[in-house]
Every structure is written in C-alpha cells, then in structure tokens.
C-alpha cells in the first residue's frame, strides 16, 4: 500500500517546479495513493529475468552527418519570447549557481 503524504507531493511538486497550494497537495496526495496502488501491480511480474524495454523497436546507430544546416533567424528564435533584450531571451533573476 503506497502511502503518499502531503510532504511527499510537495517535494515532487518542487522537483517538477509546480507551485501547488496546500489544498491541491492534499487532494493530489490522496489521488496519487490510489493511482500508485493500481499501477504498483507491474511489480508482480517484473522479475529479475525480464529485460526492460525502453524503445518499442530495436533500432540502433542512427546518426546524422556533421553538416551545418541553416539556423532560425534570431528574430524567429526570439519571436515567442515573453521578453527579450539585446537579441537575448530576458528572464527573471536566476537563483542558481554561477555557471
């Protein structure tokens, strides 16, 4: 029985960058518990000897040649930007580490 607490959901929402209100967290915690119990069935048959499938078809070695193709114009690249300045995307201050 998967127990999902509001804190668990809050942590997931933080990882997923979604600012959920407490009521939404509570609601989702109960829904998620139900869904997880339903989907946890996969564990019943997922034995050690079963290889995982991540691609539906067994393709491999798909490459392109190292050739330059036209880029978008900067106008097109920036056309949907919520804000721009100096031909760059303008974004709010970043609270991360320095690159």
């Amino acid at each position, binding site marked *: 029985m998967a127990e999902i607490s509001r804190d668990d959901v809050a942590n997931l929402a933080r990882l997923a960058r979604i600012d959920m209100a407490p009521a939404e967290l509570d609601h989702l915690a109960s829904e998620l518990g139900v869904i997880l119990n339903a989907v946890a069935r996969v*564990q019943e048959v997922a034995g050690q000897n079963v290889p995982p499938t991540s*691609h539906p078809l067994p393709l491999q070695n798909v490459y392109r040649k190292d050739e330059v193709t036209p880029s978008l114009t900067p106008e097109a690249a920036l056309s949907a930007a919520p804000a721009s300045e100096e031909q760059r995307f303008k974004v*709010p201050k970043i609270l991360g580490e320095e690159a």
Partner: protein
Amino acid sequence: MIIKRNAADMAAALASGETTSVALTQAHLDRIAEVDKEVHAFLHVDSEGALAQAALADKKRAAGEKLSPLAGIPLALKDVMVQKGIPTTCGSKMLEGWRPPYDSTVVSKLRAADVVILGKTNMDEFAMGSSTENSAYGPTHNPWDLSRIPGGSGGGSSASLAAFEAPLAIGTDTGGSIRQPAAVTGTVGVKPTYGGVSRYGLVAFSSSLDQAGPCARTVLDAALLHEVIAGHDPKDSTSINAPVPAIVAAAKNGNVKGLKIGVIKELQGEGYQAGVLNRFNESLELLAGLGAEIVEVSCPYFEYALAAYYLIAPSECSSNLARFDAMRYGIRVGDASGVSAEEVMNLTREVGFGREVKRRIILGTYALSSGYYDAYYGSAQKVRTLIKQDFDNAFLKADVLVSPTAPTTAFKIGEKADDPIAMYLNDIATIPVNMAGICGMSLPSGLAEEDNLPTGFQIMAPAMKDDRLYNVGAALEAALLSKWGAPILSHVSGLGARA
C-alpha cells in the same frame, strides 16, 4: 452535399473538374461556421491559409501538374502538431498564443501533397485524456449526441469528421487517442507502426509511445492519408528507414480469404458494454463468412498493460513537459521586480497546466525518482517486454489480432471527470499496441443497441505490417456497408436537421 462524400470521391470530383478545391474548402469552412459553435472541434480555423492552399492546388491542377491523390482535399490537424505561424496550443493554456517558427514533418508532407489544412482541432491538454474534456479551451461535443464526449485525446479530429467539418484529420495516438475517438464517433482511425510516421514537430507527450496517424470516414481515405504522411524522416531518430508498406493497395484489395484472425481472449468480457461486444461478434462472423479463419489467442500480460502505461507515459511526460517554463515561449506568470526565475517557473506551471497534466507530471516525477525508479518505471519497462512477447506469440498463431476498440460507447461529458482510474480504463484495449510499437486500426462496427451510439472494432498487426490493417479493415467495412445499406455516419443525429 459534397461535404458528405468521402475524400476519395472528393478527389475524383476535383480530378474530373466537377468542383474546385477552393469551392470544396469553402464548403467546409461554411460547415465549420455553421456547426462548430456546438461541436467545438476546432481551436483555430485558418480560413485564409486554407483558401490560399486550395487556390494553389487548383492552379497546379489547371497547369496540368502531376498531383498527389489528395491534392486539394481539406484536412483538420490536431493541435499537437506544429504548423509554422499557426497557433499551436496542445489544448493547454501554457501555449496560448504560441506560433511555432517551424513546420512538423507531417505538415511538410501534407503541404507537399497539396492537402489543404483547415485549422487545428481540440484535444485533451497535451494529449492526456480519453474524452477531450481536459482541454483548457472547453470540451468538444460528440456529433452523435452533443452531451457526450467525442473520445480523446483527439476528440476534435474525430468530431470534425463525424460533423462533416472535414473529410480527413490528423490524430496522434499514445495510448489510443486516434482509435478510441474513432470508435466513439463512428469513424476510422489508424495508429501506424511506431516509427512509421515522423514525430518531428509532434509535441511530445510520451516519446516512446506517441505516433501520429490518419483519421477518416473510410478505410480507403485513411490509407490515402496514411501514405501521404508516412515514411522515413532523418529528423526523427526513431523513424523507420524502410519502405512504407503498400497500404493503399491493401485498402483497395480487402480480401481476408484464408487469413488467420486472432481474437484476444483478455480483451472482452467483463467491463465491456453488451452492445459493444455484440457488434464485435457480428463483425467476426462477417469476417468468417468472407473466408477468414477465426482463432482465439491469449495475451496473459495484457492485464498489466494499463498499469505499465500509467507509469511509462507519465514518466516520459514529466520530462517532456519540463521545457514549458516561461523562459523562451508560452505564457509567463508572476514576473515582477524581485521575483526569481525559479518562482516564475513554479507559478507559470501551476497556472498553465490543467489538473490531469499536473497529476501525470507528479506521478511521473515520483516513478522516476531515486529509490522508486526500479519499482515503478523500471518494472513498467519489464512489463513492456512481456507485452511484446505476448504479441509475438499471438502473431505466430494469427496474421492480425482483433478486439473491441473501447469497452463502452461515448459517455456523458462530466461523467468520469472526477475518477481518473475509471477514465484510464477507456484505453484498456488500445494501450497494448502502443506499448509494443505495433500498428492498430479502429473502424465502426455498428451502433450499440442500448444507446444507439457507435462501437469500434480494433485490428492489430505486427510492426511494419500496416497493410494488413487496411486489408482486413476494407473487407469488414465493405461487408458492413452492404449489411447496413448506408454508411454509419448517415445516422449521426446530434446535429439534428443539419446533419
């Protein structure tokens, strides 16, 4: 009324000079203007662009250019497919107003074939849903009964066909989003083999499951459209580099004599509406009457398919939808002095995504997180292997496999909105096909006696054997048509006198 014809007939009318593409396009635009307030199949109608494309097709025809079979025929495009300069929202508030700076490969191929794109159709937000109720722009209504859902996620595309707003449409199918809407609207929908149609420019929901395909009112029309959009695309690493099977020829052939048709034991019975099963069994009898051999096959791991799907699809979507962060495109919420990029991302994603999308993102985030990966995502991938093995074994016994497409006919709008698990059960018969990357078709099998609503018959074939779908589909369609005397859509009643 020309809009009631099939695409192949419209093409013949264009070829003979009976009508022009401009006139045909205008007739559909008029129909949209007349009925779409009630159906709400379209999120955006590009009248100007459509008429310009139609005029170009007419001009090429007048000049005697060699044209594709569908040149000048109108089409409705699911709003998950990008078209340069045309608003593409994926049914989400997140992308409100976004005009992509590029064309998807499917759109490029449609353009190259001079198909006329009427506009963009409604869908469950980011293709997550089975009813089109999850669109941020309101639900689409089923032309058979406007109080009912048209299926999902591609409900706009299927409804546009059933409402005669377009003779052809493009859908995408991650767990049944082409086939289930086709089933509940009495139309034809095909999920091609994974990799058969390029995903370049298809806004990803679940990359390893998504596949675009044709929606139409007949098997032949679907084949004609399938042929236009299929083929290898070097821009999609998962695109199959092999010739497209002869699907149009198969749709014109329709001969099941000596063919082995496998009925999947696990995809019937409990949970399936009686009328759905009755129509399914009648169709089997028709096929047997045409000389097919009906065999029963068992796919024991299919009962785990739904669970695996609701881990794999949310996991991939949690990553695919991370790019919607208010930095480069789409809406931006909460940008004010002193507010950080991180907070703006959080606020925008809270407001921009609907409930179902957030539910799946959170579920997928959980399934991929450290400590849970093996138990959830990893186990789901193993189930995927088992489902593939089930199919491999079944295809040793049969050339194609069949089942009802959806367990029920169209339900009422709002009926399952608060019960995600009940909603997910809609896709129980369609999901295994996506999990294995094989191809599947849904075509109308009649009306359920309980509610007089359409039921769907699903055909499944191995990867790159899409032609088998069309062969069997065409045979069944012809048998049903002669039984009914008129196409099923002649019974569409939701639009009253106008239909």
